[in-house]
């Protein structure tokens, strides 16, 4: 078991190492956004990320299943061809904490990402796209989480 101090030192060392190797971009060298990840509502998260009010947009393509056979693993994907999108965040309205993850894109990649999230119950899931000019757009979908197996 390690002490808290050791852990912090190690974490800082990792960040420094990755930073020195040019692996971490300037934006994420500041640590993980604790405030945003502890948010318990969409508003909390938007505030935590320091964003403007999101506007629903058809330009964000958001893929999620209608029904999740297992809430422990829900495949989702978001993409957009809109220019200027720098980040995409995934939010689950009814999870204990709302923000699942934030992806940040350089010009070398498409603004398109797929991942898998956990859902505690049936909920709206949002893909929030953050543009370089401060605009915030989103698409959402309800995903039903079903009970499965013998339940024992």
């Amino acid at each position, binding site marked *: 078991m390690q002490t808290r101090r050791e852990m912090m030192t190690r974490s800082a060392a990792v960040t420094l190492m990755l930073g020195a190797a040019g692996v971490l971009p300037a934006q994420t060298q500041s640590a993980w956004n604790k405030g945003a990840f502890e948010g318990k509502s969409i508003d909390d998260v938007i505030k935590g990320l320091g964003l403007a009010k999101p506007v629903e947009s058809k330009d964000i393509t958001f*893929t999620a*299943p209608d029904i999740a*056979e297992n809430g422990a*693993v829900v495949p989702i994907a978001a993409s957009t061809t809109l220019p200027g999108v720098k980040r995409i965040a995934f939010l689950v309205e009814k999870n204990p904490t709302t923000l699942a993850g934030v992806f940040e894109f350089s010009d070398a990649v498409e603004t398109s990402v797929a991942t898998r999230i956990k859902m505690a119950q049936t909920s709206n899931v949002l893909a929030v796209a953050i543009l370089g000019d401060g605009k915030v757009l989103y698409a959402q979908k309800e995903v*039903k989480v*079903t009970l*499965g*197996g*013998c339940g*024992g």
Partner: protein
Amino acid sequence: MRRHAPAVALVAAAFAWPGAQAQTGTADGIAQYRALLADGNPAELWEAKGELLWKQKRGPKNVSLEGCDLGQGAGVVKGAFVELPRYFADTKRVQDLESRLLNCMEAQQGFNAAEIAATPFGRGEQLNLEALVAYVSAASRGMKFRLPQARSEERQMFEAGKRIFYFRAGPYDFSCASCHGEAGKRIRLQELPDLTRNPGDGVGYAAWPAYRLSSGELWGMQRRLNDCYRQQRFPFPGYASDATIALATFMGVQSQGSVSIAPSIKR
């Protein structure tokens, strides 16, 4: 990830499914969910780990498993899984993959097989066994089951397995056949393979070992059967016990000629 069709195409296919929005919503929804997960089975992580473990010098004797005979000769992995359980002359037993691996770990690497068999799933050497099981089964992916039944010991294990399959007991009166005795049935939303006959390519016996989404672990047939018996409200079947090997023989012979997709991905 082994299938090289890009996930985007799979996603598109899932949504272009005829009548995706139509009346049978639930079944289509589940099919769409599974299609979205088809690419990128975390079982690959276990396959990779298992390959390392197979080749790594380990145990009190510090040797690899490359001298282990899974039925195709020492060190031959490809094609072994689809011919198990089978009779082994050195142990004079019909053995499934897990019990055979235990033998090799004891005889060659110097591990204590009984101790590993008694270790709870998902801990210690059991974790390594699961990786080995993923690796060995993956080496037969796409091959058809062809369990040997030439020896009387093998045929007797099939017959015993059949009897155990239909054996009803416990407070709920369940047998394996209670849930797996008829085609087209489900528990909740999960289809139940009919194991009284050949359920086909990649179904039932031909889909295990598998990555379980619910626990995020890789389950071999031993763990699959163990949890079936738990939910049957039976007492605890010993790891690699003859009852589990007999059942595996019964199911494997039923699946003769069907293609193994193991390790697959399951709810």
